[in-house]
């Protein structure tokens, strides 16, 4: 049933830790060693780990702000165009541009657009959806969603050297270091 990838090209090295502390320390260490193409895995969000792995400010808030503004403009623009330009109708003696009555829809559209951008943006920034990923090839990796902690350094990293890097990782208190192939 599972998809077997042949060829056996090396994706990277995976170090497994049994508690978050060493993982964070290890992540910091390898970054200080100049490794960049790396990622750390934990069963729950750990702020320090994110920093350690070099993820600081997210661009998401800005995107959401833009989304909201666009939503507001679209929302009010639609109502104004319909009521004033496209088919002006005398509704209960109210003026064509009864802007106070247009506020609720404008607001809802703002929220809607912002929320859509927030979700799609999050997926995009995380490169999701990505059902296939080499790390899944590692049989141990399924414990990343339970109680194990992983650090993966990719082979494509210029500083990567199979033996050197393996030695470094095991030196950082990894319970086990394994190779991850494509």
């Amino acid at each position, binding site marked *: 049933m*599972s*998809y077997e990838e042949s060829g056996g090209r090396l994706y990277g090295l995976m170090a497994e830790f049994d508690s978050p502390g060493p993982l964070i320390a290890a992540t910091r260490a390898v970054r200080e060693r100049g490794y960049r193409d790396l990622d750390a895995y934990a069963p729950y969000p750990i702020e320090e780990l994110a920093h350690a792995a070099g993820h600081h400010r997210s661009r998401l808030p800005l995107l959401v702000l833009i989304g909201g503004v666009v939503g507001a403009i679209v929302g009010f623009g639609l109502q104004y165009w319909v009521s004033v330009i496209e*088919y002006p109708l005398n509704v209960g003696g109210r003026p064509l541009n009864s802007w106070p009555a247009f506020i609720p829809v404008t607001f809802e559209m703002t929220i809607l657009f912002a929320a859509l951008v927030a979700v799609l943006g999050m997926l995009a920034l995380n490169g999701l*959806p990505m059902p296939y990923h080499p790390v899944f090839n*590692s*049989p141990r990796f399924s414990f990343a969603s339970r109680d194990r902690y992983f650090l993966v350094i990719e082979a494509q990293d210029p500083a990567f050297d199979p033996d050197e890097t393996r030695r470094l990782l095991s030196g950082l208190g990894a319970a086990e270091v394994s190779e991850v192939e494509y």
Partner: protein
Amino acid sequence: MSQIFHPSTNTISRVSIFGAIFFVAFGVWLAAALDRSAPVTRENVVFEQPIKFSHDHHVGEVGIDCRYCHTSVETSSFAGIPPTTTCMNCHSQLFADAPMLEPVLESFRSGKPLSWTRVYDLPDFVYFDHSIHVAKGIGCTTCHGEIDAMPLTTKAVSLKMEWCLACHRDPARFVRPRSEVFNVAWNPATLSRQQRAALVQEYGIQSKTSCSICHR
């Protein structure tokens, strides 16, 4: 654990999620396009008629005035469909024995009215009045198309509400001198936009878009 999905699923899933918005947009566009398409609006569709009556011949070639048959177009909401006797005015003499005309003669003999299929057919909740449009300088061909070139009569316009509104919102695009209303050969280009706007003023055309003008 091992891989569940093939690498290609990455692309597929991304396209399907981030492309969703475009799929929806396309669906809406398609629906609108279909609603305006000839099969739905019955534009240029030929209907089965008791007689292959040719406006091309009677109007285009013979040059009979519209009002000769459609007598009440200037006085009533309904333009009028000619009674059999009107046909017989000529056809008691002309082509009286043409097999094509047999239904007319039969109707005249038996008194059974001819039964035509409506080509221009508005819904029951729409109330159109020929007389006022004619009086305000809207020509026959504006809505009925090049009737003088129709061997078999078909609908030249969609009769959708948006089509009605197009004129009611800007009659200057379609108005013509009253003298030219029944002139099937009249060419709108003979008048400038300004001249037509002047006609709208002169004829006191109130291009009404209030609902109760057509719906009651």
